[in-house]
């Protein structure tokens, strides 16, 4: 007889679901199938058994031979999902978590966009209610006027709560299974701060600057936004690598840490991640790099430049559109508000255009020569 169990949001709480499946097996219910769309898990009554479950998500989702030889077997395969189990008493090898975290992180980013829109809507609603109640002194006359705002509040708070839930789950999984945190440095000497606003735009120039600082005895301790904290001490040879990466996988950090690199900085949130790595080396030794392929490094820095300049181009497009709308309105009405808006948009447009030119000039004239 098939027993159905409904488990909403199971894919966002992977290890809890695996634990739940193991408890079901202990109670004599073995998983036989899942209904992806209805979030229903199907079980058959069997003899109680100690079972370890693991859930995988991947395009190919295949079980490595070594894992098969270590007792892992497929129970369910549903599109990119694969649920595997192991009935041995001690399990020492496990399927990878990369696919699941990558997928959940992507979902988190998409939901973050909805949560951002939701927050904006709530703020607008709040401002509207304040205006109508206290400033304008108006009162709603329709009996169910609160229904609309209530639906908006409930809907948006649900979206925001789900996003926060996903964020916490992804962070928890990453901390549990991957070493993605910034390496802490013990500070004994005097520290000082330096401000470098454009460091993410010019990775190679930043690397050179950090290496020169290390040669002068200033060791990088931590980075917060545009502020770099250094510690005064003995001169040292250290290689620094700055990267801007698109949808970085947790195993990226593990791989470099294993190879002896120290993670100095990692920006949080967003599809793009700014990263700074450091590694000391001895005199006469080749300067260590993450990649010795200059072409690949150059390609990567160009991608970073493209990403950074696109932000400015989009802002300029937005400003131009608003400017055009205000000019058209000013030609018709000739109001003072339009006049001020035109001035504000023109000035901000000029500032962004200047920044775009400056970034492009520095990138092509100074940064690219360093590769």
């Amino acid at each position, binding site marked *: 007889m098939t027993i159905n169990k409904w488990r909403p949001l199971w894919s966002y709480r992977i290890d809890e679901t695996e634990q739940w499946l193991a408890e079901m097996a202990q109670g004599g219910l073995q998983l036989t199938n899942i209904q992806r769309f209805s979030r229903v898990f199907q079980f058959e009554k069997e003899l109680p058994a100690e079972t370890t479950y693991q859930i995988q998500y991947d*395009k190919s989702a295949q079980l490595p031979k070594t894992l098969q030889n270590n007792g892992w077997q497929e129970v369910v395969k549903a599109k990119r999902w694969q649920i595997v189990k192991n009935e041995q008493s001690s399990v020492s090898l496990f399927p990878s978590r990369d696919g699941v975290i990558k997928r959940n992180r992507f979902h988190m980013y998409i939901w973050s966009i909805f949560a951002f829109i939701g927050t904006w809507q709530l703020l607008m609603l709040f401002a509207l209610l304040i205006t109508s109640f206290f400033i304008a002194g108006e009162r709603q006359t329709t009996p169910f006027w609160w229904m609309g705002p209530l639906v908006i509040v409930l809907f948006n708070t649900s979206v925001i709560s789900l996003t926060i839930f996903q964020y916490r789950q992804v962070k928890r999984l990453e901390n549990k299974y991957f070493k993605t945190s910034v390496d802490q440095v013990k500070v004994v000497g005097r520290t000082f701060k330096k401000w470098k606003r454009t460091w993410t735009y010019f990775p190679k120039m930043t690397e050179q600057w950090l290496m020169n600082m290390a040669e002068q005895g200033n060791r990088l301790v931590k980075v917060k936004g545009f502020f770099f904290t250094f510690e005064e001490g003995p001169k040292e040879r250290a290689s620094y690598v700055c990267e801007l990466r698109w949808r970085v*996988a947790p195993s990226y950090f593990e791989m470099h840490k294993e*190879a002896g690199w120290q993670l100095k900085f990692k920006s949080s949130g967003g599809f793009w991640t700014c990263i700074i790595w450091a590694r000391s080396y001895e005199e006469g030794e080749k300067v260590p790099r993450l990649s010795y392929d200059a072409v690949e490094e150059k390609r990567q820095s160009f991608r970073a430049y493209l990403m950074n300049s696109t932000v400015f181009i989009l802002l300029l497009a937005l400003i131009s559109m608003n400017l055009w709308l205000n000019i058209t309105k000013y030609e018709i009405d000739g109001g003072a508000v339009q006049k001020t808006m035109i001035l504000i948009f023109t000035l901000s447009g000029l500032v962004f255009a200047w920044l775009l030119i400056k970034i492009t000039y520095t990138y092509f004239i100074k940064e690219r020569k360093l590769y």
Partner: protein
Amino acid sequence: MNLEKIIKNYSPMTETAFYILLSLTEPRHGYGIIKHVEEVTGNRLKLGSGTIYGTLTKMERDGIITMYADEKRKKIYEITEDGKVLMRHEMERLKELHVNVIKYEEDFE
């Protein structure tokens, strides 16, 4: 990715890709691959962890290798059946290359 497409995309292989796959005669950690490549090439080929990461990620996506984790959650890479076929195909190509090197090397002296 099907086998035909894999061979078309990967062969002829880059030296980095070849040595990474050659290291996977047994499952290894990422750093284990770096060390093994240094060993078999007599320290001639030093692979950066960034190079290894990029190549392994691409190979994993294309189904040439697969990965799992040990008790300490450290990643271990293993070659798949498709990966083995690809390596045999590449080795045949290199054998032909080697035969021709032996046959004609004197003519270049």
